[in-house]
């Protein structure tokens, strides 16, 4: 099984193979990022504030270009609050003005009140720049893996170990 370790050429090929898998994944992610113009084109839902539409662990596909229309009321957007690094998925419920300075207010479908309290104190509205994408596609459950991984860090180690083993042990 470990015969490859005795063969440097084969070991190097396997290392290359592993690198290829990683870089392909990375390129696909970044490519999607360029196409959708969003720093994070796929996000996992972390809270239940948009239930029943989105549950924890659902995967959302984002689009951040305004080709035909501006981002407007009713769209579900992912935004970052100033100085906080937690993306939030909520629906735009009002929009005053047009263009990049339009004032946007958001609310979770499952929440009783709008998001003013989630924003930075003094910030009453969002602007287009705060938004990193509008939700266009939906895939249930798939993202639960990442929630499991981030909530149970030991799973990350185990998974990486298994992946490494598989690559090393598999012969072409």
């Amino acid at each position, binding site marked *: *099984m470990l015969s490859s370790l005795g063969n440097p050429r084969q070991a190097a090929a396997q290392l290359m193979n592993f690198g290829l898998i990683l870089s392909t994944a990375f390129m696909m992610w970044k490519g999607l990022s360029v196409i959708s113009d969003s720093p994070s084109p796929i996000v996992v839902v972390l809270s*239940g504030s948009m*239930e*029943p*539409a989105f*549950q924890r662990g659902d995967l959302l596909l984002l689009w951040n270009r305004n080709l035909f229309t501006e981002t*407007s*009321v*009713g*769209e*579900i957007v992912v935004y970052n609050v100033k100085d906080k690094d937690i993306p939030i998925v909520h*629906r735009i*419920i*009002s*929009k*005053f*003005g*047009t263009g990049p300075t*339009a*004032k946007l*207010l958001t609310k979770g*479908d*499952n929440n009783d*009140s*709008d998001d*003013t*309290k989630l924003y930075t104190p003094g910030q*009453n*509205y969002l602007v287009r720049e705060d938004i990193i994408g509008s*939700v*266009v*596609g*939906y*895939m*249930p459950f798939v993202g639960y893996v990442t929630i499991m991984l981030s909530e149970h860090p030991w799973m990350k180690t185990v998974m990486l170990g298994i992946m490494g*083993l*598989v690559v090393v*042990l*598999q*012969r072409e």
Partner: protein
Amino acid sequence: MYSSLVRLQNTFGFFTTVAFCVALLISASDFLSDRAPTVNVLKTTQLQVVKGRADYYSSKKEEYAIIKFTLDADLSSLFTWNTKQVFAYVTAEWPSAQNNNATNQAVIWDTIITAPSSDHLGNFSPSKLKRLRKSAAGKGIDPSRGKLQIKNQRLKYPLTHPTGKLALTEDVQLKLHYNVQPWVGFLSWDQNQDWGKWKALKNGLSRKFTLPAIKTKEQAKKKTTTGGTRA
């Protein structure tokens, strides 16, 4: 090459490919079903502009509008086997004083219409859940839920404007919108144009109206005190 790990890997790979293809087919099936949502009635029944705190948390006093409206719409064609929920919402829209584009838009009322199989996912009260379950016993799809008949509905979210001024605003229109949330696939919204088998939302706009002048101080005061006791 034929170790159990590799077999496991191949099985998992095949499973994800098949699952993804099935999901894609389901999502594509959306485009094969007819959509012809219509609005029969959408009109305001009461208009009022008051100065005060729009909700219990707001710190500043501003003008806000209270609107009551009547809505009769048929969104039943939006419910197919891939519909998880329909989010229907009514917005008030009006052009800004400076230019003529409709640049002010605010949701005044919304409702979540779940498909029978997603009832349990919503955060509904036990009584409402029971009622929903009973109404759709044995049904996976229940298009009749898409028939909205609402009379004299008070708005859910007080209508305000960042400038704090709303009285005598002209050319305000109510508009019904919807957002269809699929079980898997692409989200869709109401359209202004026909698109294949999906027809545009008919008659979704109310007549244009002008918001009334602000209520006098005494009346406004009375309003806020009654609001306080109710809270």
